[in-house]
């Protein structure tokens, strides 16, 4: 992994996480999960405007697992010389660099920064991918390219805001970073083509393993519920959500400074309350 890219959580102003090596503490850690390899997590985020939610995400991940986490923030400054034409966020195509950054070895989890964890991330890490390179949640409302409008493929694809990947197998579907960075067509489109989007039958269980939708619940919705629109989609009870994605920049309970959108109300106050509980704890620690 390149040095400048490996912005670890200490540098990002969040929390470092080192196993305690004091002898008396070691005893308590016998047979604990500290001895296992760290779970590699890559977080797509902005340069500094999302620090608030980054800290909350990191805190929530740590508080729900006993595993060591190796968290890397993927910031725009790392990709200054990349072609960013048609990117939807400041970090859209960073996620495709992950397998190469991991030397095409082992597993890695990708997630956007605007998320909150409720369940041990180890369960996602250990998801059975069978022969697939990626694990993602199915989103029946995902809009596919215009060329599929009016066909049965107009909507529906796997959401790439949370991905568990087998870095070795992923190599087959992702080009080298040197090619991704010069791509003039938003590399996301190239990747989607490589995994046969929007033809589900050519992808599901072959390239992408569909994972439990609770790992990427869009604002509390049952993300893979087949329905007409997000307003009519079923919702999870709070205790059934494993990992939540605050999807809309305008209605997120916080409003990053780069957002050009108006501020809209957040519909699930119970989720917002959980977010604030963590936010209060995190800020109290930061202020020490």
């Amino acid at each position, binding site marked *: 992994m390149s040095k400048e890219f490996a912005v670890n959580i200490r540098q990002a102003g969040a929390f470092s996480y080192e196993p305690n090596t004091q002898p008396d503490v070691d005893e308590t850690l016998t047979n604990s999960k500290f001895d296992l390899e760290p779970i590699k997590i890559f977080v797509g985020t902005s340069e500094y405007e999302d*620090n*608030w*939610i980054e800290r909350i995400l990191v805190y929530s991940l740590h508080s729900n697992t006993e595993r060591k986490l190796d968290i890397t923030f993927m910031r725009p400054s790392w990709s200054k010389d990349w072609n960013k034409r048609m990117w939807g966020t400041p970090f859209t195509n960073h996620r495709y660099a992950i397998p190469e950054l991991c030397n095409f070895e082992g597993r890695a989890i990708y997630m956007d920064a605007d998320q909150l964890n409720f369940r041990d991330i180890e369960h996602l890490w250990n998801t059975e991918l069978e022969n697939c390179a990626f694990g993602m949640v199915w989103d029946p409302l995902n809009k596919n390219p215009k060329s599929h409008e009016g066909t049965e493929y107009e909507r529906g694809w796997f959401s790439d805001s949370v991905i568990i990947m087998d870095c070795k197998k992923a190599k087959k579907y992702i080009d080298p970073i040197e090619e991704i960075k010069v791509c003039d067509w938003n590399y996301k489109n190239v990747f989607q083509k490589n995994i046969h989007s929007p033809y589900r039958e050519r992808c599901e269980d072959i390239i992408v393993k569909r994972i439990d939708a609770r790992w990427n619940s869009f604002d509390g919705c049952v993300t893979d519920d087949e329905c007409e629109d997000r307003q009519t989609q079923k919702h999870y009870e709070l205790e059934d959500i494993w990992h939540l994605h605050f999807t809309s920049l305008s209605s997120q*309970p*916080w*409003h*990053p*400074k780069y*957002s050009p959108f*108006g*501020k*809209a*109300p*957040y519909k699930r*106050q119970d989720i*917002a*309350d959980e*977010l*604030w509980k963590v*936010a*209060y704890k995190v*800020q109290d620690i930061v*202020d020490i």
Partner: protein
Amino acid sequence: MNLQLFNELANTAIKYMSPQEDWRFMQADTYQFYNITHNSVYNATIPDWRKYKNEVFDEIRKHINNKDALISNLILVKTTPHTIIHPIPIESGIIPLKSDGLYGAIRPYTNRDKVIRQTYLHSPWMFQWNQDDSFGFYIDEDKVLFPGGRVMNMYSDGESLFWYFKIDNAFKINPITSKRNSLVEKRQEQVHE
């Protein structure tokens, strides 16, 4: 006005919320708590807002001497020396908690377009405001401003902290187009929330 209430909420916001941007207060940290638009009512989700909201609104209504006022906007603003403030519209007010060279000029107009040009002023205290039937002054801490039917220019020279609130005046401006009934409904919502 019970300023302790506004100070407590401001301290909580600055400590726990993520600073935002607002078109009215360029290059400032802002924290929006409440906003009524044509199709929605925005409430900040931070739990302290639920706790203080009714009291805050009551204090504002008491201060402007209008117990039926519909408050349509409430924002906390933390300025920098680089902050540029759009002219404050009529029926709006400022609750200054910390004034670090904050300067205001109450103008004899109802339309903000008439005063937008003076936004550029580098040293507003040198401007001859009285020649334009205006009144320029340093804004004191803890002195609530509500120029009512006049617009106001504001200038930041440091790190000031104030609340901005707006009273809905659509009915006053145009009773035919203001959809009076929907405003009355929103007013009721605000009281019963």
